């Protein structure tokens, strides 16, 4: 594997990863901006419409036809968040030219298509093409409405809003329905121009052989843009609520959901991750073995450390009548960790799992892209092996300290309507 990051323009990074085991090429273009209710939806619409049409392929039908001619090349928009940042952009992947049956230059055609999407979009005056915008808008509104279809996703989303109330991180990556409904093609185009000027931009290209033409294309096009990047503060510690809050909603569902949030003032992210793995990320973690296997209280019960926000989340699917028992056992298992009831086997098992996981990062283009993007947002470029060494250096005492730093912040409950208490 060969890795190189160059700065193409002011705060525009281009990371190239060459790995000859792959049969395809992958590209990700990420715009980082601060999450805000005012801009999240319109920013999302702006990048959403980029993948629907461009000045060369002026309708979604034309765009889809071209992509399928290129052996089913994939082009899609991205909208997610990390800490207080909204991460928008596009991702593309295509078959390496070596596998083209008729000798087509798939890579060259994709480079031109992506150039047109980003730097020559389908606009009419100072607005995105209205038909393309309408498609992007319907898709976004449907995504927002459809969140309730997946009950666990909805429950976590509501819990996140509660945990980070009044902070940028409370905002959904997609933005709000009201803001999306109100946005016009003009608003979205303006938002895109603003992102091109002010967003931090990171581009990742994974390919089986060296190819500088994409970096050159980006360099030439960004040279035309007067950049004035705004810094984005991704990480901060979310404040602990004065009193833990519980919010409930009732739905006509069979299984209730409980999402518990804790806050921490610890910056020891490696100890928090070790704590998370031993406590509840894996099938041999304390939550799985006790809450699910021993007491049969939940089909799933797992946790995650959100180091960028100083938060820690436990999510579970549970019968309404068992909620208090499940909560008590979840807290009891955390108390065990606070008291230092952590075995060498548990620590070694967590390390082994992390060792296996970090080695698999290099087995997919998306693994590479996630890894290097996380390094960028963390402000620290290390190899997966160096990352593992940080975990190996975590002592039991640091894990205990991380456990003791967790303080209850809030609980979101999705309750089954039918059971009367």
């Amino acid at each position, binding site marked *: 594997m060969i890795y190189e990051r160059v700065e193409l323009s002011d705060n525009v990074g281009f990371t190239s990863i060459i790995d000859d085991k792959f049969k395809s090429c992958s590209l990700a273009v990420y715009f980082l901006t601060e999450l805000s209710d005012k801009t999240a939806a319109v920013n999302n619409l702006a990048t959403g419409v980029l993948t629907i049409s461009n000045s060369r392929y002026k309708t979604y039908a034309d765009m889809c036809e071209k992509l399928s001619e290129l052996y089913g090349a994939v082009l899609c928009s991205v909208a997610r968040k990390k800490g207080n940042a909204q991460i928008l952009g596009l991702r593309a992947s295509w078959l390496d030219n070596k596998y083209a049956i008729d000798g087509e230059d798939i890579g060259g055609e994709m480079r031109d298509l992506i150039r047109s999407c980003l730097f020559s979009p389908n606009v009419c005056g100072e607005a995105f093409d209205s038909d393309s915008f309408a498609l992007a808008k319907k898709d976004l509104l449907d995504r927002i409405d459809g969140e309730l279809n997946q009950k666990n996703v909805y429950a976590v989303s509501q819990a996140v809003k509660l945990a980070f109330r009044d902070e940028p991180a409370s905002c959904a990556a997609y933005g709000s329905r009201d803001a999306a409904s109100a946005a016009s093609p003009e608003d979205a185009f303006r938002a895109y121009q603003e992102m091109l000027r002010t967003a931090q931009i990171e581009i990742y290209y994974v390919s089986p052989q060296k190819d500088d033409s994409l970096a050159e294309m980006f360099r030439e096009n960004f040279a035309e843009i007067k950049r004035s990047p705004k810094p984005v503060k991704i990480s901060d510690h979310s404040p602990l609520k004065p009193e833990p809050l519980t919010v409930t909603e009732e739905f006509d569902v069979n299984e209730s959901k409980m999402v518990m949030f804790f806050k921490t003032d610890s910056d020891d992210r490696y100890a928090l991750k070790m704590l998370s793995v031993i406590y509840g990320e894996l099938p041999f973690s304390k939550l799985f073995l006790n809450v699910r296997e021993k007491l049969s209280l939940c089909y799933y019960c797992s946790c995650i450390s959100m180091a960028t926000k100083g938060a820690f989340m436990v999510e579970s699917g549970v*019968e309404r009548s068992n909620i208090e028992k499940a909560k008590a056992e979840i807290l009891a298992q955390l108390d065990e960790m606070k008291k230092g009831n952590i075995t060498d086997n548990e620590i070694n098992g967590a390390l082994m799992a992390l060792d296996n996981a970090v080695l698999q990062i290099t087995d997919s283009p998306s693994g590479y892209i996630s890894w290097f993007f996380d390094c960028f947002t963390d402000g620290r470029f290390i190899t997966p092996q160096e990352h593992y060494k940080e975990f190996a250096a975590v002592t039991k005492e640091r894990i205990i300290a991380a456990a003791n730093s967790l303080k209850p912040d809030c609980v979101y409950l999705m309750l089954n309507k039918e059971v009367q208490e």
Partner: protein
Amino acid sequence: MEKEILTCTRTGDSCIHVKHRSGLDIYICEMNGFSSIEAQFGTKYGSINTVFKTSSDPEYTCVPEGIAHFLEHKLFENEDCKVFELYAQTGASCNAMTSFDRTCYFFSCSKNYEENLRILLKFVQEPYFTQENVDKEMGIIGQEIKMTNDNPEWRVFFNMLGCMYHAHPVKTDIAGTAESIAKIDADLLYKCYDTFYNLNNMVLSIAGNISADKVLEICDECLHPCADKGLECVFPDEPDGIVRPEIRETQPVGASIFNLGCKCSPRLGLERLRDVTAASVASSLLTDPALPMCEKLLKDGVINSTFGGEVFYGSGYFTLIFSGESDFPELVREALFNEIDRLLTEGINEKDFQRIKKSSYGALVTELNNVEAVTNLMLSSYIDGISPYDTIEVISALTSADVMDFMRRELRRDRAVLSIIEKEK
């Protein structure tokens, strides 16, 4: 034992097939440059296999719905520990899944694959069921059934199957029901285990950073030879027609969704692969946003980007399913069948057909980039009775006339079922 090298002439990829002396079929793909290893140990035993006999059984045995899935859960428990605890010592990620026609146990790792493989082969061959541990599992599986019933994608799919199949057990939830699993006991689990977890009915698929010789050495060490028991599964007679054409259910969802399934004739082996490939290309043509029908439905707001199609098949069932989010699924059904009629009258545009073929070929080649996908490919080919690279060959040979023939034979209005999950008003 003879190593058979299977090669994809289009890409140069290859894998090894061995019929092990224990009775097990083994597929191995050494993937240079990759760090991870994926292994799947599977049996041709899923939720549809509820009536069966072996050559030594005087009569057919009929078992409760959901027992294959229940057995999968219980096999993760050894006499002296849980299987998860063994994998905790090696760092591998392990899990299992039960579908309609298979149960698979798998691990993923990048170190210690030899030890992980030993654990996998050992625990699947050493069942330990007691009435106590069976009773304890009822609660967890009951929770799982409740959870899946809250999943609208699951509900819309099973509602469709229930309206499509009169008798075939594919219409029943993989995990069964609270009532059906209550009838399961340790003896029944052993009966099913002894019948279906015979190595002659099983497959090992392993890919990634491995040595084929080492894998075979471990197989020699861990596999207990089995006599072929002459397993026979039977399915009730299933009429060609459907039960009813439409079903609606209201759920607390944010977006209404639908499944539109066309009941097709089930086939086997390579004949089925040809139909699967033709159905898949037909589905791509009928859901292609580049073509006028979809373009209009998108523009009119009838569908969104979730609209797509998939082929669903197994022993005794074959369905082409169109699905997505829509507040107007009846319009989607009408548009689809009008488009099928148009294509059958006017023919398929050859340029569109070649474009879809290229796209399918690209997706298949890209799959070979991925260790997990290669493991799945090899295992599925065994279950489906074909060779791992047959699909690439069949798609390359497919003509538009083959797709027309499939559509004419199988995509009929009178065999279509529309299942809808609607938002609460």
